[in-house]
């Protein structure tokens, strides 16, 4: 353990070019996936809180269940779609960062929908009468509660980001862990573990944890500033 800590510090201090590239790739892939998931998931979550339609409860149960989607299952599913023998094979996306973004977006979207639904549901209860008195239509209500809940929705997005960066099963299958192209932090950790370089793998894991703490701290402080401004 101690050896891993020292190694982690050395790796960070040395600013190893390959390591930086892998960290940058992890971030680019996961941020893109989370952006897509948020663009879909936030409006969908708020809509679930506002609209009343038959089967709504079933959808909520389903979305909550999908929060626990096993990454390897999603990876396999996306692989079968993107494989040359699959329906989207002609796109040639398998073993590219785009495939990894798609897989992570599929994993993260239900998380953002479910958390956003929970966060906006109570807000909507609070606002409903007033919104009705303004004659607001449902899609105005969706916009309003999304906007007013934006600070707490950072939590939903961060939960999704955490899932995306920590996930290994799906990106390994659809990305192929190709050096310099689709190798990210988690797949590197798996690879170094399998080479028996346990200290290096652990050091990389520590760096992943540190970057996750950094991202969350930034997000929290942004939320804090925003909340302060709203006074």
């Amino acid at each position, binding site marked *: 353990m101690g050896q891993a800590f020292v190694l982690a510090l050395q790796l960070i201090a040395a600013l190893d070019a390959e390591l930086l590239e892998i960290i940058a790739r992890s971030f680019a892939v996961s*941020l893109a996936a989370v*952006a897509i998931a948020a663009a879909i998931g936030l409006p969908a979550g708020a809509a679930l809180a506002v609209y009343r339609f038959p089967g709504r409860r079933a959808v909520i149960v389903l979305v909550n269940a999908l929060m626990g989607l096993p990454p390897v299952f999603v990876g396999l599913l996306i692989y079968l779609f993107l494989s*040359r023998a699959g329906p989207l094979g002609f796109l040639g996306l398998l073993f590219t960062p785009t495939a990894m973004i798609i897989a992570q977006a599929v994993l993260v979207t239900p998380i953002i929908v479910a958390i956003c639904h929970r966060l906006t549901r109570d807000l909507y209860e609070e606002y409903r009468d007033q919104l009705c008195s*303004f004659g607001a239509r449902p899609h105005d209500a969706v*916009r309003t509660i999304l*906007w007013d809940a934006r600070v707490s929705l950072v939590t939903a997005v961060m939960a999704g980001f955490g899932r995306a960066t920590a996930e290994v099963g799906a990106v390994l299958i659809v990305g192929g862990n190709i050096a310099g192209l689709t190798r990210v932090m988690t797949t590197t950790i798996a690879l170094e573990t399998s*080479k*028996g370089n346990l200290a290096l793998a652990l050091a990389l894991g520590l760096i992943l944890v540190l970057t996750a703490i950094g991202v969350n701290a930034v997000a929290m402080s942004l939320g804090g500033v925003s909340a302060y401004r709203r006074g």
Partner: protein
Amino acid sequence: MVRRLSVPVVAPVWAPVWALVWALVWAGAPVQAPAHAQDRFITLASTTSTDNSGLFAEILPRFQAQSGIAVRVVAVGTGQAIRLAERGDADVLLVHHKPSEEKFVADGFGLERHDVMYNDFVVVGPAADPAGIKGMVRAREAFAKIARGRHLFVSRGDNSGTHRAEQSIWRASGSDPAAGRGKWFREAGAGMGAALNTASGMNAYILTDRGTWTSFSNKGSFAVLVEGDPALFNQYGVIVVSPERHPHVKADAANLFVAWLTGAAGQAAIAAFRKRGRQLFTPNAKPSTGN
């Protein structure tokens, strides 16, 4: 308490979201850039045993420098590598189970099969050697002894080339490890390195290729106990995926790669690759294929 409301927000919600999406898609673009800027790449489906040894990291840059073709390695077990290639998800296949490779070609999925290199499998286990197999000449007899004593044995259990080799030794040993499944016979269902970690954690015997073993860093108290049996020979072969079966396959670039690998330059690069002072693979392509 009524919170401040902001009902007619139309743009403010969506604009930042879409701005973010596009910003990030563009930010992600540089990650993709090499794929477009340099169209000359092929995808090689290969095995964890070759990739984990560091061979590809050593020799592929030389091929790229010479040809301008980048080789993207997807390292999985032999069984999975063959399935990837059958689905057209790779341009070249480099694996180590000759019967499966020949079937792949016979079924029309690949062009000609070429020998590339070989090394050998070894039986490793705790240096204390509770089963007493150290120095045995026949791998099958060592396996039989492990089975008789019900000593822990970790199987790859993943249809990889090494797993197939292990299965054929078990068949030759005359003992049925399936009877000990979940007891002394533990199927890891993992790559070579991960399975070695498992065996090391359980103090169990395991069959491994020498390349992975030599470059493996978590040996602990493990040692090579049985080696040198002709049944432990480990031949690697390379096959270009058939462009007739999958028209998108980059057969020209893939053929260039195979010609290089089985030619003088590639064979010399394989012979020169050393890990911890040891040569891990012996090139043995037939000269006729090296042009």
